[in-house]
């Protein structure tokens, strides 16, 4: 990341700490608690102040010595693949209850394999199905845990 990018990230964290500090100031207190040496908002306020101070130091560091900063390249990063995997994880969360563990896991794993470049359909489907079924049986039969079976396996 460029120095500008690093400063932007530090500013974003600065805003986060300020927002956290403002949130800490709104933590409710019981009557009379404001006189006590320690309140539910004491630690959050201390953390927010520390965070803000550190961000300022960081920004000053970046402004003073930009050439010495670490600058990893972002060219060639596979944003699309990583983004699709994040979407697949969210979709897995949505699907696990309505579709059931087995089907949701088969779909998640198969999607993951496909996104990462696996194009051999028998391997893609066979591995995800076998793995999901074995894991489901292990959890439900061997360990006695409940996993939503879904409408197809529920009966």
């Amino acid at each position, binding site marked *: *990341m460029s120095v500008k990018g690093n400063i932007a990230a530090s500013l974003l964290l600065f805003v986060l700490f300020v927002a*956290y500090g403002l949130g800490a100031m709104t933590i409710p*207190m019981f009557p009379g608690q404001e006189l006590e*040496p320690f309140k*539910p908002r004491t630690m959050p306020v201390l953390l927010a102040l520390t965070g803000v101070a550190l961000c300022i130091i960081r920004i000053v560091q970046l402004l003073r010595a930009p050439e010495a900063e670490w600058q990893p390249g972002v060219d060639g990063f*596979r944003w699309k693949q990583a983004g699709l995997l*994040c979407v697949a994880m969210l979709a897995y969360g949505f699907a696990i209850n309505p579709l059931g563990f087995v089907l949701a896991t088969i779909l998640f794993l198969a999607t993951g394999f496909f996104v990462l470049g696996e194009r051999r359909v028998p391997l893609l489907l066979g591995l995800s199905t076998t793995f999901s079924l074995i894991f489901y049986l292990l*959890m439900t039969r061997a360990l006695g845990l409940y996993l939503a079976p879904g409408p197809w396996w529920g009966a």
Partner: protein
Amino acid sequence: MWDGIATGISTVLIPTNLLLVACGCIAGTFIGMLPGLGPISAIALMIPITYGFDPASGMILMAGVYYGAIFGGSTSSILVNAPGVAGTVATSFDGYPMAQQGKAGKALAIAAVASFAGGTIAAVMLMVAAPALAKVSLSFQSPDYLMLMILGLTAVSAFASRGNIVQALIATVIGLMLSTVGTDPSAGIQRFTFGSLDLVDGISFLLLAMATFALSEALMSVLKGELRSESKARTSNDQIGSLRIEKSEAREMVPVVARSSVLGFFVGVLPGAGATVASFLAYGMERALAPIQEQLKFGKGSVRGLTAPETANNAACTGSFVPLLTLGIPGSGTTAVMLGALISYGVQPGPQLYQNNPEVFWSVIISMYIGNVILLILNLPLIPYIARLLALPRQLLIPMILFFSLIGVYLVSFNTFDIYMMTAFAIAAIFLRLFGYPMAPLILGFILGGMMEDNLQRTMTLYDGSLSFLWERPVSLGITVLLVLVILTPVVRTIRDSRRQS
């Protein structure tokens, strides 16, 4: 004491109990290896299984699982840089670079030997000094704990920062901030829950650890396009390399093992500190003690850097049993689960345990030693096979890591909100990693946040909001001096380097 040891040996050497230790070690190793399932989950899963056992057998099984999971965590830390256990995060600092250099076998062998040595030395120390050590932790008060935790966090930031302590401290503060989400333990007031019931109990450690390590690491490797080359490198078993530890390396390990065992054991004895702090402190200590040329190797595959946390985390695991068994205070999250298990067996841990149930007390201690022997016998020859399990092509391994991370957390809460939260934290962790913010201080800040707040509250109440404990309590004063040294060392070094350059 000797009668107790004899009772412990006779209890552990019953074939059923020996089998339980072995099964516990194997199960623990496999579970610990899988990112998403750490020792807490492994032990929690064992509680229903051990209901039918007598308390000694149940605790023996769980001690085996604990050790196995810690070692399994080291294995995944070294091979895929995905520590399933907070105590093995420091292992990945040098273990993973070593594996990347084609010395994965050597790294695993060093980890196994260091774990065995650390566990063995600590078990002997535990047998000899358990009652006396309980008194040490009794003498610590809230201000001392508070300062110890601040020291631990600062030490982690000082060495995990790879040159920028400010960024590491920012990550620590973010971790501490996340620990304040949920219900305030003292007043019962909700903080930063945004009215969501899912956040009332706070964010789970497992969730955050999996999101910031396993998930973000897996996604980072996708982002960087490390799929093809890594899969090629891992499909060949030859890449694991020799398991042989050279004589020079063994000589290098001996003093590190001795120092880290003692440090790990004592840190483990202190309630709340545990394997994570021990491993980070040992790593920091060895880095500080190493000559300048050796220091440069830290984070790039140093033998000392790998030996120190591995020895210390196993020694701390043993040490954490001291407050659990003698005081009834858990020294770590894992021993807290064990405390719950003991109570469910009808055994009340504390000073009375030593008197009323000596077979439980001593059999756990002896089983730790037996567990260490089994881990060494079992893990060293099995290392190539264990490594082969993780040698799947990356395009198949990464979705599996994502699955185990998600399901490991989901199986604890059965709440899909956790899956969404993990995804969000993983994306945030990638953002922070890209800008050079280390994750280890963040996770340690999160783990210690709740305990730090408890101790801050007690200290502020005891001293009426004054900071006089810093000079009134000798232990706090000593720790504060160490803290100042930890902060000043990198500053002085930076000034010295810049003067040399100019």
